C-alpha cells in the first residue's frame, strides 16, 4: 500500500491511516485467545478420541489422567502469552510495512525484516514471560 501510494491516498482523504490500517489488526489479534481456547479443546478432544477409540485407555482413566497434573494457572499463563504474542504479530509487521520506503524490492526486504524481528521479539518475550510467570 505504501509503494502504490494507497496510504498517501488515505491521508489526503483525511483518513488517519495508522488507525485505519493497523488498529483493526490489533483488535482482531486480541481475539486470538478464543482461537487458542478452541485449539486447546480440540487438542484434548483429539487425545480422548485416540485414547478411547484406539483402545489405549478407557474414557474415565483418560479424564483422571488429565486432571492429575492439571494446574489452572497454566491456562491463564497460556492466555497471557497468547495476548502478548498476538500484539507482537499484529504490530511488528505493520510497523515495517507502514514505514517502508522504495519499491517492490524493498517490500520483500521489509517482509523478511518483519519476519525476523517478529520471531526475535517472540523468542525474547517467551523467555521473559516464562521466567516471570513460572519462574
Amino acid at each position, binding site marked *: 500500500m505504501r509503494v*502504490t*501510494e*494507497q496510504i*498517501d*491516498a488515505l491521508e*489526503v*482523504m*483525511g*483518513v488517519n491511516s495508522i488507525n485505519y490500517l493497523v488498529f483493526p489488526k490489533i483488535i482482531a489479534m486480541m481475539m486470538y485467545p478464543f482461537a487458542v481456547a478452541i485449539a486447546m479443546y480440540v487438542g484434548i478432544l483429539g487425545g480422548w478420541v485416540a485414547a478411547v477409540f484406539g483402545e489405549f485407555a478407557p474414557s474415565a482413566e483418560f479424564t483422571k489422567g488429565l486432571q492429575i497434573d492439571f494446574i489452572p494457572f497454566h491456562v491463564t499463563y497460556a492466555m497471557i502469552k497468547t495476548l502478548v504474542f498476538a500484539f507482537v504479530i499484529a504490530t511488528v509487521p505493520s510497523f515495517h510495512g507502514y514505514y517502508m520506503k522504495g519499491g517492490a524490492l524493498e517490500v520483500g526486504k521489509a517482509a523478511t525484516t518483519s519476519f525476523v524481528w517478529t520471531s526475535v521479539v517472540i523468542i525474547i518475550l517467551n523467555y521473559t514471560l516464562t521466567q516471570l510467570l513460572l519462574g
Partner: protein
Amino acid sequence: MIEVDNIHKSFGEFHVLKGISTTFEQGKTNLIIGQSGSGKTVFLKCLLGLFEPEEGSIIYDGDRYADLNKADRRELRQNMGMVFQGSALFDSLTVEGNVTFPLEMFTNQSKGEMKDRVDAVLERVNLIDAHKKFPAEISGGMQKRVAIARAIVMNPNFLFCDEPNSGLDPKTAILIDNLIQEITQEYNITTVINTHDMNSVMEIGQKILFLKDGLKAWEGTNKEIFKTDNQAVTDFVYSSELFKKVRQMYIEERN
C-alpha cells in the same frame, strides 16, 4: 483559490523549495511544470498538506493551513481530491467500492444515496459498466478515470493531479486532460496538475507555473508560453523538434 506565499521546504541540508509564491485560481486548470528534481512533487505534497513547509504560508479559500487545528485540517483534506500518478486505487475494493470509500468514511448518507452519487460520478467519467470490476481488471486509462471519480465524489473545492496522463497513450491522455478541464469548469474547482506532458501544457494550461531548482522561474498561460523569451522555459518546453516547429509556426502566423 489557493494562495501560496514564499514557501520553503528542506530535507536535511537539501533545500528543495526556495521561496515559491503564486496563486492558483478557482475554476481554472493550473499546471506545475519543470524538470525532474525541480521540486514539483514536493510542492504538490506541500499543497496537499502531506509536507509542512518550514517557512511561508498556504491559504485555501481564505484559511491559512498553518493556523488550522488538527480537526480543521482533516476537514480541509476532505475538501480535497487527489489523482495520483499510479491512480492509487485500493486493489482489494471494486471500482464501486473505491468510489464509495470517501462517502462511507465521511458522510451519513444511506446506501441508496451513496449508490446514486457513485453512479452519477462514474457516468460523468464515462465508466458505466465497470462497477463490479477490480482495479487489476481494468486498463490504465480506466483506472485514471476511477481515480478522478473517487477524487470528485465528495464535491471537493480543490483537485490535485500528479502526472494524470503518465503511462497513457496520447489519445487516452487527451481524453483524461479534457475530462479534468471539463470537471474543473463544471464544478468550479481549483485544480492543480503536476505534469511533464507538453500536450497538456498546450491544451489545458490556463495557468502554468514553471519551477526550476526549487524556484518559480516563470508563470503564465498556454498562450503566453508561445511568446515567452524566458530561456529556461523555452529550453524545457521546446526541447523536442515537434514543439520547436509548432512554436515557429505560431510565431510566423502572428507575423
